[in-house]
């Protein structure tokens, strides 16, 4: 390329083509999907996130959880994710229609979280487990290298009645005697988001067989 105008035109054309191919076409193909409605209950799959879970998503983004955790289960042919129990099926494009931005992740310093809700449960015990784990990961999984998030909780002296929200730890040494650990709003939101991470529902293109 010898002349500046030709160089410019060449670059412009190549970049425009790339934009059309790698941005516009994927957008039209998988960027405008709708949830599937159940025939009898009319409930959408994937389900919409609650307001608290949406706030939790923002906490997840702000603290860079996606630096260590992926949220994608590869098909059985593409890796051992399903064999490892990280999901009953591989995830597909439609699973992510609520996810803007998406947290697919690039590295698994920690386990995949696509299905953390069915794996750990959704009851009160699971909520406590998540809180205890976020406050002190090693208290739940010994040897864990996950970053602790004590700043999402307040450690305070018990005054009168212990708080009904106080976290129960299996290891009594985590909290000094006479103190309790209470989750902040952000911590509750984050756990609500984690409890919403469930891709075990069935989709036409992704049977759970």
């Amino acid at each position, binding site marked *: 390329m*010898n002349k500046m105008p030709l160089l410019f035109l060449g670059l412009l054309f190549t970049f425009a083509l790339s934009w059309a191919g790698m941005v516009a076409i*994927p957008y039209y193909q*998988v960027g405008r999907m709708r949830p599937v409605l159940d025939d009898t209950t009319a409930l959408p799959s994937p389900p919409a996130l609650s307001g608290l879970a949406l706030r939790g998503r923002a906490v997840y983004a702000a603290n860079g959880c996606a630096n260590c955790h992926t949220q994608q289960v*590869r098909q059985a042919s*593409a890796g051992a994710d399903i*064999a490892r129990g990280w999901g009953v099926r591989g995830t597909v494009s439609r*699973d992510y229609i609520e996810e803007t931005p998406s947290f697919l992740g690039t590295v*698994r310093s920690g386990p995949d979280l696509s299905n953390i809700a069915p794996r750990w449960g959704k009851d009160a015990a699971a909520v406590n487990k998540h809180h205890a784990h976020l406050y002190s990961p090693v208290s739940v999984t010994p040897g864990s*290298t996950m970053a602790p998030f004590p700043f999402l909780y307040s450690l305070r002296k018990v005054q009168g009645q212990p708080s009904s929200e106080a976290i129960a730890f299996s290891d009594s040494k985590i909290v000094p005697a006479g103190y309790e650990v209470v989750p902040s709003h952000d911590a509750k939101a984050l756990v609500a988001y984690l409890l919403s991470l469930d891709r075990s529902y069935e989709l036409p293109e992704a049977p759970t067989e």
Partner: protein
Amino acid sequence: MKDADCQAQVNCECAAQTSAADRARLDAACAVPVLGFFGSAIFWLLAASLLSLIASIKLHYPSFLADASWLTYGRVNAAATSAHIYGWASCAAIGIGIWILARLCKIEVQCPLPLLGALKLWNLGNLAGIIGLLAGQSTGVQYLEYPSYAALMLFIGYGLIVLWGAVSCARHKLCKLPISACYVVAAFFAFPWLFAVAQVMLVFQPVQGAAHAVIQAWFAQNLVGLWLTPSALAACFYIIPKITGRPIYSRSLALLGFWFLILFSCWGGGQRLVGGPVPVWVQTVGIVSGFMLLMSVASVALNLHLTLTGSFSHLRVSPALRFVVIGAIAYTLASLLGCLLSLRSVASYLQFTYAIAAQWHLMVSVFVGLVFTGSIYYIAPRLARWEWPSAGLVRWHFWCTTLGVIGLVLSLLAGGIHQGISLASPDMAFMKVVQSISPYLELASLSVIMLTVGNFAFAFSFFLLVVHAGKRRTEPTLLDDDMTEESAGAETNHE
């Protein structure tokens, strides 16, 4: 004189030959903004080194600095990456690009105000971005974590540079662009396009999940492939012939490599999503584009190798050439490793492991990082009118950095392979895998410590150069004290 002939071919393939006086005049005109960008780049390199050291230690010792929200791993790691890309690499790329354009297109910077404004905006943008990120305002989009106000400052600052570039290019009268200028123009053109598309579609008005992932991968790939890579190749093609005193072996081969890079790189990205929840054709196009890119890589490697042949003795003495050549070798290795990792059979093991990080470091820290470092070693003395004050500091920088990056890449790669094979057997508990790769991560942290030491030596050296410390040297600072007259002369002739 032989060197003068080479100079004519390399430097001004069509227009009138530049004399040493011309070059000194062009250098003096752009000295302040370019040195400003280099100084900022080195400052952000130090920030990135310290942040990545903290992040690296946290990976195997999570209770390190764990109480402060602004030092949690996810924030520090994102800040380190952003400081590395937008602080160090981008500032260095802008400085080198301006200088190469000024030299090759004979642009005398008459009004440095837009460039100085851009410099201020980039530093402010990076500062605001890193503080915002650590304060918990990350967007959560990889490589675009800076909050919107910081991204906007970077974008406006970049606009000022483009304005300067457009005005300058409109005035220039060359009929034939040297290859380095082509690379610089392509890089300067690609960055705002990529950055704007990504900011709008990923942060400002984020598109739906799966499409978001595709566009994010496309941006991540091309931020390196179309912005940092062409900038670094421009430096390779300019500086290697300058130091060795031989013209680029083949201009046609260089042009071929250039267009292959532009054509194929911009279809990449899908290889980062192999096995993921995105259309399979996106993944396949990504894998294929990676392999097609090897043609560009091979032509660049061959061309640079043939340009260097017969001048390998310069590697013993010239710090600039050492850094640039090691960087150029890493380009080939990183591209090959990238292709290997994208293969579906390999990805089923190594996707999501530290091997991916190893490839990223090989490309960004070794190739781009070392080529930019070498370029600063070559350019800064010419702009500051002062040689590097201490060969000892340069030697410290060279060995710490080189051994540091090699250690980092090898430990992450070995750890990643170990991790991938362990994760592929579902019987092995995840916690066992985490514990078994801890030693590799400790090695990686040691390497980052070495890198940080090297970078501080570099920064100190640069500071001494800018303040004109020590005695005035009449010849360039070379690494081997008993060098021959000839090898010492080669670099001075090309000042």
